[in-house]
């Protein structure tokens, strides 16, 4: 499903049996099985076979299942795609996406695998991981390149390396890329996800970063530790005051529109029809987060 809650996308090494077997207990919105950077070169085959068997055997309780394949310029990508599609993966994350051509190439192999294994053509979604300046420049074209595209994400490790800088707590070096990616994703009508936060012990820094990316408009964040899941879910859940404001907005718009009034004030704030979509989104997010107690 292209549109669903994806606040947390938890990476785990597909080769590690202890991680794969019960990742669902942490309740991320998505699990990303990593066949790429987390897996040693001489274990790519093992990780792929482990992924296939996990997909066929383990009940992940409705959590979305994504695979990060190896780059299409490696000897592993095609077999990664075959194994993942045969196993029933929901989405394929294409690393180091720089042009729409990278998505086209992945899509070609995905469709071939869907045909081979009797999977409904078009069922498997794609997300593009953007990890370089060229990818950032091409973000909108990448986001629009396929009907399968459900999102784009920023990969800060490779991005900062190619930008000849390093990551900082403040994240100023990611400012341009984050803004461009969110704009591109919104213009293309797909979702946008922020990069991982690697300092697992720095809870305060993590909370600050999650608040920042939420305010920028990101839909969620890649995470690398189950400890990070409740923090992200909490930051992304609408507050009760946001929910009440959304409820008032929705009810007031309905009431005033029946009277032929298009703009008015509620609690001193100007309200018009442009606010309705945001208010509906707040209520939907509140319901999905399990914090909505109203009757809309």
């Amino acid at each position, binding site marked *: 499903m292209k549109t669903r809650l994806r606040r947390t996308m938890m990476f785990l090494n597909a080769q*590690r*049996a*202890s991680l*794969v*077997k019960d990742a669902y207990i942490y309740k991320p919105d998505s699990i990303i099985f990593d066949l790429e950077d987390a897996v040693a070169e001489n274990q790519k*085959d*093992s990780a792929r*076979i*482990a992924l*296939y*068997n*996990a997909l*066929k*055997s*383990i009940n992940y309780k409705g959590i979305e299942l994504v695979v990060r394949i190896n780059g299409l310029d490696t000897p592993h990508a*095609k*077999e990664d795609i*075959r*194994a993942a599609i*045969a*196993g029933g993966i929901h989405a394929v994350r294409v690393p180091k996406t720089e042009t729409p051509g990278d998505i086209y190439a992945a899509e070609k192999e995905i469709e071939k695998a869907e045909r081979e*294994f009797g999977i409904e053509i078009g069922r498997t979604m794609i997300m593009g991981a953007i990890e370089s300046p060229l990818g950032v420049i091409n973000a909108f074209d990448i986001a629009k390149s396929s009907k399968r595209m459900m999102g784009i994400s920023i990969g800060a490790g490779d991005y900062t390396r190619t930008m000849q800088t390093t990551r900082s707590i403040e994240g100023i070096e990611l400012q341009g890329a984050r803004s461009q990616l969110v704009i591109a994703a919104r213009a293309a009508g797909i979702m946008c996800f922020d990069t991982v936060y690697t300092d697992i012990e720095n809870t305060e820094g993590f909370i600050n970063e999650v608040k920042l990316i939420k305010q920028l408009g990101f839909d969620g964040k890649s995470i690398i530790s189950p400890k990070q899941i409740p923090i992200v879910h909490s930051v992304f859940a609408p507050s009760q005051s946001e929910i009440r404001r959304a409820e008032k907005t929705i009810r007031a718009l309905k009431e005033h529109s029946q009277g032929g009034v298009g703009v008015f004030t509620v609690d001193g704030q100007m309200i018009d029809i442009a606010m309705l979509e945001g208010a509906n989104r707040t209520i939907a997010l509140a319901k999905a987060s399990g914090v909505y107690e109203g009757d809309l």
Partner: protein
Amino acid sequence: MILTKSAIAGTLESSDVQITIEPNHNGIELFISSIVMGQYGKQIKDVVIKTLEKLGVENAKITVVDKGALDCTIKARVECAVFRAADITENLPWGEKL
């Protein structure tokens, strides 16, 4: 399937299993050690044998060192060891024999 060399797959980490496979001519020789041998020894044997049968392996010496792996992990590691021993790296029969 014909095995051309020895191979290992898996690890000795908790929840994993290490499978060592060597070609032979005496049918299937299976050696199992497990941290849960009493409770799951037979089940481990059944999973290994069934996986080998599906892959068409009739002659091999297999050593299994289990650290509490799920059946799907045991199956995955046996499959990986077999394909490595047969030198098969692509076009695996996903969905058929796996």
